[in-house]
């Protein structure tokens, strides 16, 4: 079964990554990152059972905490940008280039 779970996690990770690439709304982009983290968690949990130790699950906890903190910071940044530009599109922020 581990393989199944891993393939699923891989798919979710790739979908998340693709979402980051094609979505313009910063919030959605960020959601995609969250999806990727979730995919990681799935892998950790699967491996935990595969390897017969609980470390994977512990790591998954940490990932959740880290994700939560990241979400806070990230959303704060997005909000700030939105206030300034009235837009949450990541494409609109491209003054810095070349």
């Amino acid at each position, binding site marked *: 079964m581990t393989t199944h779970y891993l393939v699923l996690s891989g798919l979710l990770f790739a979908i998340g*990554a693709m979402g*980051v*690439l*094609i979505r*313009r709304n910063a919030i959605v*982009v960020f959601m995609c990152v969250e999806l990727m983290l979730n995919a990681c968690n799935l892998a950790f949990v699967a491996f935990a059972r595969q390897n017969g130790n609980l470390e994977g699950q512990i790591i998954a906890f940490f990932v959740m905490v880290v994700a939560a903190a990241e979400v806070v910071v990230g959303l704060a940044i997005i909000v700030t940008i939105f206030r300034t530009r009235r837009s949450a599109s*990541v*494409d609109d*922020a*491209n*003054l*810095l*280039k*070349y």
Partner: protein
Amino acid sequence: MESPAEIVQHTAGGMIGASWLMIAFPLLGAAILLILGRMTNRWGHLLGVAMSLASFVVAVLTFLEIIGLPAEQRRQAVHLYEFIPGMVDMGLLIDPLSISFALLITGVGSLIHIYSIGYMSHDPERRRFFSYLNLFVAAMLLLVLADNYVGLFIGWEGVGLASYLLIGFWQFKPSAAVAAKKAFIVNRVGDFGLLVGMFIILATFHTLTFSELGKQIAEHPPSGGAVTAIGLLLLLGACGKSAQLPLQSWLLDAMEGPTPVSALIHAATMVTAGVYLVVRSGAFFFPPDSTQAIAVSVVGAATLLAGAIIGCAKDDIKKGLAGSTMSQIGYMMLGAGLGPAGYAFAIGHLITHGFFKADLFLGAGSVMHGMNDEVNMRKYGGLRKHMPITFATFFIGYLAIIGFPLLSGYFTKDGIIETAVHHQPILGWLAVLGAGITGFYMSRMVFMTFFGEKRWEKDAHPHESPAVMTWPLMILSIGALFLGGYLILSNRLYFFLSPAVGTAEATPEFDFASTAGLVTLALVAVGAGFAWVRYGRAEVPAVAPRGSFLTTFARRDLYGDALNESLFMRPGQWLTRFAVYFDNRGIDGLVNGLAAGIGGTSGRLRRIQTGFARSYALSILFGAALLAGALLLVGNI
């Protein structure tokens, strides 16, 4: 045939040991005059003359000491100092050949110095002129006295420098500046030959010193190829310095210099350095009847004709004389190519030519002095009454050069012709022809200048030159009268020189009634007569008539310049332009292009940095995929 005597390393003191003073005096003079500059304006010319005379005195004393020695000891090498350690030591070779030259150089040189006091009296830069003259004398003495090829070469280039400076003495005239440069550069072509010749000498014989060379050749007779190459290369050098075909073109232009320069450098001494070189190297590299020796003669014969033809067409008195110089040196070369049999005559002609040609040039200078520096003979005429001394001396020189019997030129030139007819008949008869032409153009010159109606410019007031100028003329004309006979009759010169240059198989005899001699005289007479018809009796037009093809050919210096222009200068210019273009656009262009290419790459590549976070994310994902792919690939290998 016998080789020259061995060179003895000079040990005792005496005049020979002090012979370096010969060079040192004029060198010192030049240095003082150049360094002190304007401070010496008042007495500079006197110092110059004094130094030249001092050198002459040393030369005479050395000469006396040499002739006091037994013949086999007359070659003395004086070691001066270590020049290039392990390769060349600087030293002097005092032998009959070099001392003859030294006497000529210092003697005629001193006379010309004295003459110049008067000739240059109005020039504000007279002091500089004398410094150059002194420099020239020093260099020329080094050339002839050095006991090795490097020393010779230093002198060789030194006289080239002095010549350059003196031709360009009036450098503010563009023509003078160009002429000076041309002289130097054409000479350098010859120097190239001399230089490469030295390479081969050193490579073959491991020495550049005459004494060692003699020993080497005596011990290991050299193979043909290298010697031929050396000979031809030295000949190239000689051609440059002596204005022989094909490097003759500079000499006519060199007449831009003050007339004493033309007399000293471009007639009496420097231009004969080529002959000296051939004769000096003769024992080593120009065995009689070898390819290179014949080449020397051929060059000589060709040049003597060319010079003569050019001389016929010139209205400029100095250029006419320059043509004649070429021609006379051609005779010397012709003689020098004949081996020891011709050496004495060649050197003899060289010495007598030194006198009579200096005489002629100075005479011409005297004429110009009196004619507001006019050089066009068509604007002379009838001057013999106005400057009698000049006329007389000039006339003596004239007679000497055309080979009027019993005058200097007669003996030496006839000697060469006879020897040539004997050894190389074709060349000999060409020389005879040349003598006839000489008779024509020299007569033409004399007639146009001193005879006929006066054709002067309005403001010309011809007058005799001051004594300081006429005295040297008189002394020189004495030489022109008698020196030839003294040297040639009873083979005085031949025997004097033979320790230095070797002896011929048969001791040459001067024959007053040889066929060639008589034919020569006849031709000369015909030439002179023709000249009388054309220029003595008939009126000389003030503007040169167009003349035939041959005249144009001669006036254009046988198209020598045109040939140089189309063969070397134009292609050279194109090459230069191409090279400059190639350097800027090609090599530098490549470098700049590379830089621009990197810059351009940068300019394009930075567009990848679009500023869109999503593109960056894409590159990260791609990178991740590549990294993973590569690692999986590497891991599975």
